[in-house]
């Protein structure tokens, strides 16, 4: 267990943690804004991966054209997803109904991706190419080699985390969205167009998840089974604590690192280790890292 392994495992763990964090933030936004637990989060990531793969590989767009176009696609997907899986159910009497409709949306997304792009996994050229060898760009520090793709993921992840914080703490739009999230009825009385804020929330959530998809597309194969990554984002959200984004991000990073280091001893039990950590965490601090006991009002 020399230093090389520890560093490369840590870097891989943190970069995967960033992917889970992007999804976890989306989950928290939806839980707080709309009270919905989104079971299609992983499939939104998969859809994002397919869209970016389609734009770069099939249409061969250069980077500066691909990014704006993919953002447009994310917006469209977000709005369609909202008006199919959530809007008709927004005042459903039965809370479980909205959750289960996201499960239906998850299956539908998988199949739509298969129908459009075929069921065979597709590979995507690496984002950061070493100009000389044409292979994947690698950062060498002493004897430690780290792929630039992981570092890029970490950078992009932190940029998005910062953007979400700025949106919700500094910008008026963010405060409007939070108001609509706290109490839709009161927000409407104050003239906040809740339909717009909900759409904005969904678009942000889809953009976050799809960026995650874009980051891992070159590392993994783009296939319709990418959705299973969402289970680790769930774990991150729970460890993070009730509905707060800081906790969800730290929880996801913790899950990513635990997952990477668990491959050392029992690699085939990797899933079990990640979720045992989750359940042990629940025993010790049911309200999570940052959550505090919230007593409901009578």
């Amino acid at each position, binding site marked *: 267990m020399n230093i090389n392994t520890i560093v490369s495992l840590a870097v891989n763990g943190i970069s995967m943690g960033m992917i889970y964090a992007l999804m976890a933030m989306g989950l928290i936004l939806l839980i707080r804004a709309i009270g919905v637990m989104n079971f299609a989060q992983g499939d939104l990531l998969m859809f994002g991966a397919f869209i970016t793969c389609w734009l770069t590989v099939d249409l061969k767009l250069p980077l500066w054209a691909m990014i704006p176009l993919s953002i447009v696609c994310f917006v469209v997907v977000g709005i369609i997803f909202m008006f199919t899986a959530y809007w008709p159910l927004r005042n459903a009497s039965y809370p479980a109904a909205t959750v289960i409709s996201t499960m239906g949306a998850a299956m539908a997304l998988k199949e739509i991706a298969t129908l459009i792009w075929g069921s065979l996994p597709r590979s995507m050229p690496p984002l950061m190419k070493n100009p000389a060898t044409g292979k994947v760009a690698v950062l060498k520090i002493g004897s430690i080699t780290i792929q630039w793709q992981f570092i890029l993921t970490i950078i992009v992840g932190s940029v998005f985390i910062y953007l979400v914080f700025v949106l919700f703490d500094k910008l008026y739009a963010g405060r409007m969205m939070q108001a609509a999230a706290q109490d839709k009825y009161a927000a409407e009385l104050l003239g906040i167009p809740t339909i717009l804020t909900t759409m904005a929330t969904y678009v942000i959530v889809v953009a976050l998840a799809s960026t995650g998809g874009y980051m891992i597309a070159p590392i993994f194969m783009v296939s319709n089974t990418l959705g299973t990554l969402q289970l680790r984002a769930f774990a991150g959200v729970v460890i993070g604590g009730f509905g707060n984004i800081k906790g969800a991000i730290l929880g996801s990073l913790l899950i990513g690192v635990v997952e990477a280091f668990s*491959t050392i001893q029992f690699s085939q039990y990797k899933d079990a280790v990640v979720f045992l950590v989750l359940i042990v965490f629940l025993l010790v601090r049911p309200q999570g890292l940052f959550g505090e006991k919230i007593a409901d009002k009578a």
Partner: protein
Amino acid sequence: MKTRRLIAFTMAIAMTALAGCSTTAPTQTQAPASASSEAAPQASTGNASAGFDGSVTFGVVAPITGTNKMVGEYVVNGAKLALKDINAAGGINGKELKLVFEDEVDNQQASVNAMVKIMNYSDVVSFFGSTYSANCIAASPNVLEKKIPMFAGGSSANIPKKGNPYVWQDRMTDDQSGVLLAKAATENLKIKNPAILYSTESFGTGLRDQTINALKALGIVVPEKNQYGFVNDEKNFAPMISQIQNSDVDGLIAIGNQMPAAVICQQIDAAGLTIPMIGSSSWASAVCRQNAGASADGWYAVADWTVEVSTDEGKTFAKEYKDTYNADSDMPAVAVYDSIMLFKKACEIAKTTADKEAINNALKEIKDYKGAMSTYTYSENHCFSTSQFLTVNKDGLATMVGTVKTR
């Protein structure tokens, strides 16, 4: 409020008809679901049945839809090629060969359903089972109950071991290909202290155990820390690869299905691992080479099949497959082709195309039969194949280096 309820009601009717299918996608034949006792719907009719007195039906189970669709295409094409060749040469004992297909999709429940369905067709005399070992094991009790000879598509050594006289394998079983893998790694690639990266599903664990035993016989002990298991749909191999990269191993033996193989090639290439690497037959498969692209180059593999085969029967099959489907053939296609040929040989020995028991016993008499994939001889563990090819991937092609024999 009234109209809302009306819409709800009409939705209910449509819903019950359409929605709510269970996630285990069903088996699917081209014909509607027939009650099992009648004859199998004729899925593919060969040329006119003139000149034949009656017919014999052979069943084929393949993953026609779902994530393993590409493998399914090879099985269907290989079977239809066998159908064309056999009927062109006068059928079996003068009877026209007919095929019926069942779709095993991509999970165990559907696969067992498909095999149970095909066994129950009254006129199916024998059939080619699932290409995945766990499914063949699951269906073997039904095969024993129905007393119908099954050619298993999987290669796990646990399939025939269940003492079921009706289960046969034309592909090399893991225990023997484990020996070949160990022999090729030590003699051809000169690996002294290998790391083993294996998939934890039944095929992977079976082949890993056999390879480790074979290596022990050759005096090489693989410590637990150099063994890395991964779940079949694993995507993130980077942590394991970086551990291999920083450990003292001088070679890598990789075992897994086609999909993980492609991802492993890509991620190892990205990590810049340069130690000699040999994989199980998936690493020579067209699926892996197409998806991994250039990153699959340099990988050796002990494979059941490669298009650049140098044996005569192999060359003729590869050429005929290319001419008919203008695409390269792959292991699943040649495996089903050879199984049907072995079935034809057994029928000729037993001089019957109806008596399952006689055909099953006739399979015991097959000796040195030159098939496309290998030369086949009966052995107690019901595995016919006697050799595999050693290949190396060079600029997208799995070129053949030699054959590795067991007996």
